[in-house]
C-alpha cells in the first residue's frame, strides 16, 4: 500500500472469537476472522457490511474494548496491548452509534465531556478544565450555556455532538466512528457528516468510519473496506470500490443500495442476492460467500481466497473474479 511513515494504524490478522453456549454444546462465534488493513494519517477508511458481519467488533477490538483472540493492532509503530491501552486511548477514541444510550443520563454535558480529561489528568486546575470543555463545545457547535444541562434535554443530533466532543477531549489522532449517523434524521445527518469532515481538515484526524449506509460511507471515505462474515472481501479507493467493484458480494451490495434518483433507478440493473447471510456459528468452509454466490466453483468450497492486489491498491478476495 503506501509508504510506512504515513501509516497511523496497522491491523495484522486480527481475530476475535466469542464463546457461545448452545444447549450442552460449546460453540465459537468467529466475529472477526483474520482481518488486516492499514489507515494512513489524515485518512478516512470506511468499513461497510451487513449487520452481523463483524464491523463493530473490529472497531471495538482496535480499542481493546474486546480483547483480541489473535493478531496485532499497531498504532504509530507501537503495538496496542491491554497494558498500554490507557496511554493509547489518549490517541485513539471512539464515537458510538446510539447517542441516546452512550451518554450517562445522570451527568451534565460539562461532566460528560470533562470525564476523559479527569481520567487522563489533562488539566492543572478547575478553570483550565472548564476552559477546555468550553472550547471543545465550541468546536462541535454547542453553546456554552448548554454545559450545565443533562443529555436528555438535547435532540439526537446535538447528543451526537456531545459524544464527538467527548471523543475529542483527549486530542486524539484517530477516532473509530461506529455508525455515528445512522440513528439520526436525514436532515441532521448532513450536519454531522460535514462536522466530521471539518474536524478532520482542522485537526488532521484519521477515522475508521463504520456504517451500513453505503452512500454516506462513500461520501466521507477516501478508501472503503467491505466485510462479509468476519472477513474482508474487498478494500480499495472509495470511488474505485463503488464504481468498479470486483468481489461478487460488493457488486450485489452496491447494486442493492437505492439511489435517490428516479431516472437512474429505472435504468439500473439490480442483482438481488438469494437467501440470508449464513449463521456465523455455522460458517461455510472455504469462501464464506459461496452459498449465495453465482460464480461459486469447487475451489471456493475448499479454500478461502486471499486478498490479492488488483492494481492501484485495490484488493479483492475472490477465486473467480
Amino acid at each position, binding site marked *: 500500500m503506501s509508504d510506512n511513515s504515513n501509516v497511523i494504524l496497522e491491523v495484522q490478522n486480527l481475530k476475535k472469537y466469542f464463546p457461545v453456549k448452545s444447549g450442552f454444546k460449546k460453540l465459537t462465534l468467529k466475529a472477526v476472522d483474520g482481518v488486516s488493513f492499514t489507515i494512513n494519517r489524515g485518512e478516512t477508511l470506511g468499513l461497510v457490511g*451487513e*449487520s452481523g458481519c463483524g464491523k463493530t467488533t473490529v472497531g471495538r477490538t482496535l480499542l481493546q474494548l474486546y480483547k483480541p483472540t489473535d493478531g496485532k493492532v499497531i498504532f504509530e509503530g507501537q503495538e496496542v496491548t491491554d497494558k498500554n491501552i490507557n496511554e493509547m486511548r489518549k490517541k485513539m477514541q471512539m464515537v458510538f452509534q446510539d447517542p441516546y444510550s452512550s451518554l450517562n443520563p445522570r451527568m451534565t454535558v460539562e461532566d460528560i465531556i470533562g470525564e476523559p480529561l479527569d481520567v487522563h489528568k489533562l488539566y492543572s486546575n478547575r478553570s483550565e478544565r472548564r476552559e477546555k470543555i468550553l472550547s471543545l463545545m465550541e468546536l462541535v457547535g454547542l453553546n456554552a450555556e448548554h454545559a450545565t444541562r443533562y443529555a436528555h434535554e438535547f*435532540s439526537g*443530533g*446535538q447528543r451526537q455532538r456531545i459524544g464527538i466532543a467527548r471523543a475529542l477531549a483527549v486530542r486524539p489522532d484517530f477516532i473509530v466512528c461506529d455508525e455515528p449517523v445512522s440513528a439520526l*434524521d*436525514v*436532515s*441532521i*445527518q*448532513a*450536519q454531522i*457528516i*460535514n462536522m466530521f*469532515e471539518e474536524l478532520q481538515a482542522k485537526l488532521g484526524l484519521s477515522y475508521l468510519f463504520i456504517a*451500513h449506509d*453505503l*452512500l*454516506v460511507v*462513500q*461520501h466521507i471515505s477516501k478508501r472503503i473496506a467491505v466485510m462479509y462474515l468476519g472477513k474482508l472481501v474487498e478494500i480499495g479507493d472509495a*470511488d474505485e470500490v463503488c464504481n468498479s467493484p470486483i468481489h461478487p458480494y460488493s457488486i*450485489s*451490495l452496491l*447494486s*442493492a*443500495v*437505492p*439511489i*435517490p*434518483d*428516479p*431516472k*437512474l*433507478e429505472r435504468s439500473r440493473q*439490480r442483482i*438481488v*442476492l438469494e437467501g*440470508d*447471510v449464513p449463521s456465523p456459528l455455522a460458517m461455510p468452509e472455504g469462501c464464506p460467500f459461496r452459498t449465495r454466490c453465482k460464480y461459486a466453483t469447487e475451489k471456493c468450497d475448499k479454500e478461502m481466497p486471499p486478498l490479492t492486489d488488483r492494481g492501484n491498491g485495490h484488493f479483492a478476495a475472490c477465486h473467480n473474479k
Partner: protein
Amino acid sequence: MKEILLRVDDLHTTFKTDKGEVQAVNGLSFDLHAGEILGIVGESGSGKSVTAYSIMQILADNGSVKSGKVLYKGQNILEYSADEMRKFRGKCCSIIFQDPMTSLNPVFTIGNQLKEAIKLHTDKKGKELHARAIEMLELVGINEPERRLKQYPFELSGGMRQRVMIAMALACEPDVLIADEPTTALDVTIQAQILEEIQKLQKKMGMAVILVTHDLGVIANMCDDIIVMYGGKVCERGTADEIFYNSKHEYTKGLLKSIPNTTNMNQKLEPIAGTPINLLNLPKGCSFCTRCKNAMKICLTEPPEELFINDNHIASCWMNVKEALEEMSENPEVQ
C-alpha cells in the same frame, strides 16, 4: 383517470400528552388511485406513520382523529363501528409494520398467525385454509412453506419475518396495502429482496400501495407518486420525476441537497439548519419557516396555500408565489 380508492380529506390527528396536545397531523389531504404506489416521505415526527395509523384507526389510546374524513370508495371509514372497522382491516386495507421482530406474536407459530388472518375474513376451513396459508408463503418467496408454518417467529431471520408479515397482510387480497417503513430494520441486500417482492405482488394483484419511509432512495426506486410531509402537513406532492428534478418546496430542495448522492460525492453536503420541529408548539405560518434559509415575512405569519405547479405537481411554499410575481413584473405582457 383511474378510480379513486382512498381519499384523505383535511385530516387532523392529535395526541394528548402531559406537556400538552401534540398536533401530529395538521390538515392532510390526498387521493390514492387504484393500482398506484404512493410514497409518503418525511423525517421522524413529520406525521407519516400517524397518517397510516389514522387510516387504519389503530392510534394509541391518547391519540384521536380530531376532524377530517377518510373516504374508502366514497364511504367515510371514520364513522364505521368497531365491527365494521374490523372487517375493513385486512380485507380492504392491510398494514405492514416497521419492525418484523416485534409485530409477530412470539408464542404462536407462523401458521397459527397466518391462518388466523385468513379465517377472520373468509370461510375457508381445514385443508382449504392450510392450502391457502402455504400458497401465501410461496407467493412471498419463502422456501419450505410446510416446515415454516410449524415454526415460531424467533426461528426465522428478519427478512423472513417481514415476508411472513407481507403474506399475512395480503392473505385476503386487500385493495390497499400500507407499508410503514417496511425495510428500515433490514439490511440493504434483504431490503432489495423485500422491495422487489412488494413491487412484484403489487403488479400481480393490482392493489394500491402506500409506502411510508424516510429513505429517499427507496422512494425513488418504488413510487409513481410522492408526498413530502413536514410538521404534519403536505409540503409537496407530485410524480417521482417532478419531486426529484423539479422540486418547488424549500424543504424538499434542502432534503435532496443534504443527502449523499452519486452526483455530489466530492462536494460538501448542504445540511438543513436547525433541529426538527416541535409538534407541541407549531409555528403560526409555514411549519418549515424556522429552518428555511429563504424564509420571508409572510412565511412566519401565513400558512402557505397549496399551489398548482402543473398537472402532476402541487406545492405549498410562498417562494413559488414570489417567483411568479417576479416573473410577471419582468414581462408585464404575459398577464
